[in-house]
């Protein structure tokens, strides 16, 4: 080479042996994949001392998480002693046993010492009457054939389309990593592994203890669509739980939301989505109606505001009461199809109720029925029969809004009435927090 123009060819010829090999390429790719992990190390440098202090300062609620994180730090196990018996084991995926056309599926299993808590669902028959309790029907047996004691259980049944789901806790003689669930003559092995990370222990089942409601999620694939059946149970038989089906969505671990493409008349939703690890069902709020609660209140034109209404353990607050005179017009048709119009002077009372309850932050008022004492309402003679006109538009069709107030109008009150006795019944409350349920694929 005697010319700079040939430099490229000269170097390339002489350095022919120096080139990107598969080894180098694979090394770069591999390192790029773990670079995120390295970035996390810097966060860990800051977070670990804080976690360590928290771990030492507080007890059980965070120590599980803190131990799981800290044990990856070399030497830390020598500083924080972890009892092997307190090591948490769990299921990485669901385990299903088919019995003819019926099934039992364990969605989660996790250990706490020598107890194991299962989230389990199925549609095999379970008879809860008589002396054959659940402990004789779903039995847990360790590898040495010892039968575990059934310590506690919560079950939700859907009797219309026979289905159950629940949480069962068994106590074994010692800590177990594997055991069998036996139903009738069928055994299903459950093999747990050490939980790889701080992960959701329970899948497909959640207890909202503040409001005494359990919710179970039963999944299935129907014609390539994911079917999600919501089962709910309140700890009080006077309460009924319902869901805003169209607002419920699946949330994957990338933060993408997937709304249902169809619902049925029950609590079943269909999604155009496959289940995968990390997916969760998000219920923006749930509705709880209490058919047993009622409160009687006298509302007069001289009332001092606000008016407090004690309903169950909570207080409803009426912030404003407005009395308005108006002419009630009542149309009806005779059997001969003649239209008749009745007009009568009346009063209506507009109540502005605060949706926030003074006794709780978990619930807000969604709707409530208000009935005025019959004697205080106008009566009409229709076809010779005394009747009370009920405005069909009175039926409230509430929606959750950011508004903190709900307006309720009581119509057709007698002219000149100075006070009314109102009975508030069937309050419907909604939860202020989202309900998030991890789902096991």
């Amino acid at each position, binding site marked *: 080479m005697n010319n*700079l123009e040939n430099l490229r060819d*000269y170097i390339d010829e002489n350095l022919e042996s120096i080139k990107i090999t598969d080894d180098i390429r694979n090394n770069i790719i591999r390192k790029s994949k773990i670079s995120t992990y390295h970035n996390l190390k810097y966060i860990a440098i800051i977070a670990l001392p804080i976690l360590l202090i928290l771990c030492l300062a507080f007890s059980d609620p965070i120590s599980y998480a803190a131990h799981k994180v800290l044990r990856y730090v070399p030497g830390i196990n020598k500083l924080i002693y972890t009892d092997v018996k307190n090591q948490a084991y769990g299921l990485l995926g669901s385990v299903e046993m088919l019995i003819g056309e019926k099934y039992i599926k364990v969605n989660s299993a996790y250990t706490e010492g020598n107890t194991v808590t299962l989230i389990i669902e199925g549609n095999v028959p379970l008879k809860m009457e008589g002396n054959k309790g659940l402990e004789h029907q779903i039995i847990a047996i360790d590898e040495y054939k010892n039968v575990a004691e059934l310590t506690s259980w919560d079950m939700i049944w859907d009797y219309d389309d026979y289905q159950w789901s629940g949480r069962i806790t068994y106590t074994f003689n010692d800590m177990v990593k594997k055991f069998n669930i036996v139903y009738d003559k069928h055994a299903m092995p459950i093999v747990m592994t050490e939980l790889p990370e701080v992960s959701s222990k329970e899948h497909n089942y959640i207890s909202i203890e503040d409001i005494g409601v359990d919710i179970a999620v039963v999944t299935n694939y129907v014609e390539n669509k994911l079917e999600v059946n919501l089962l709910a149970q309140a700890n009080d038989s006077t309460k009924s739980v319902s869901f805003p089906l169209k607002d419920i969505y699946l949330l994957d671990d990338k933060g993408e939301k997937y709304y249902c493409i169809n619902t049925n008349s029950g609590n079943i939703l269909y999604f155009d989505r496959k289940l995968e690890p990390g997916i969760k069902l998000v219920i923006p709020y749930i509705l709880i109606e209490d058919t047993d609660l009622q409160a009687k209140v006298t509302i007069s034109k001289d009332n001092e505001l606000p008016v407090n209404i004690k309903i169950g353990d909570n207080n409803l607050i009426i912030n404003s009461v407005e009395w308005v005179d108006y002419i009630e017009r009542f149309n009806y048709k005779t059997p001969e199809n003649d239209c008749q119009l009745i007009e009568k002077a009346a009063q209506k009372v507009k109540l502005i109720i605060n949706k926030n309850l003074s006794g709780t932050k978990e619930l807000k008022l969604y709707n409530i029925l208000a009935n005025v004492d019959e004697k205080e309402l106008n009566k009409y003679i229709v076809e010779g029969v005394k009747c009370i006109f009920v405005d069909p538009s009175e039926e409230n069709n509430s929606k959750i809004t950011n508004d903190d107030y709900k307006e309720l109008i009581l119509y057709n009150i007698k002219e000149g009435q100075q006070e009314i006795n109102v009975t508030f019944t069937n309050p419907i409350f909604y939860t202020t927090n989202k309900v998030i349920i991890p789902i096991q694929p």
Partner: protein
Amino acid sequence: MSKETMNEQDFNRLINEYGTEILRLCYLYLKDYQLAEDACQDTFLRVYKKFHTFKGNSSEKTWITRICINVCKNYLRSSWLKRIVLNDKKLKNKKVSDKELFDRLEDNDLFKSIMKLKPKYREIILMYYYQQFTVKEIAEILCISESNAYARLSRARKELKNRGIGEMVYEQS
């Protein structure tokens, strides 16, 4: 290719397209195969991590070369890294030593003179004639003005000429 994220396929393409040239450039800078391989890997890891900052104002090659040069300069400043690499067992397995390879390269007077130039002149000669960047691209890579890059290239050529080697080749814009 997305300017925000880089998938494995895109990353593979960059390695295939520029990997060998970057590795050889590292080798010419560092004169040590193990260091060059490490520097090349570091260069592409930085490319992967910093890809979201690549605005597309310059070419991919310009951008990657700038990263590569910064990595190599950092390596040259780090004597600690040299000692670590010298103990690497891979070095012992290499069939041709760096000295043999460089002796072979420097068998040519012109190349030998280039390698003996001051680093900033050697750098610009390699960029212009080996990597075949334009003066404008070199200015971007070295973060200097275009006129400054041109002057530096001219001085480098003059330096070579003073040593009685090479021809004056002027920038064709």
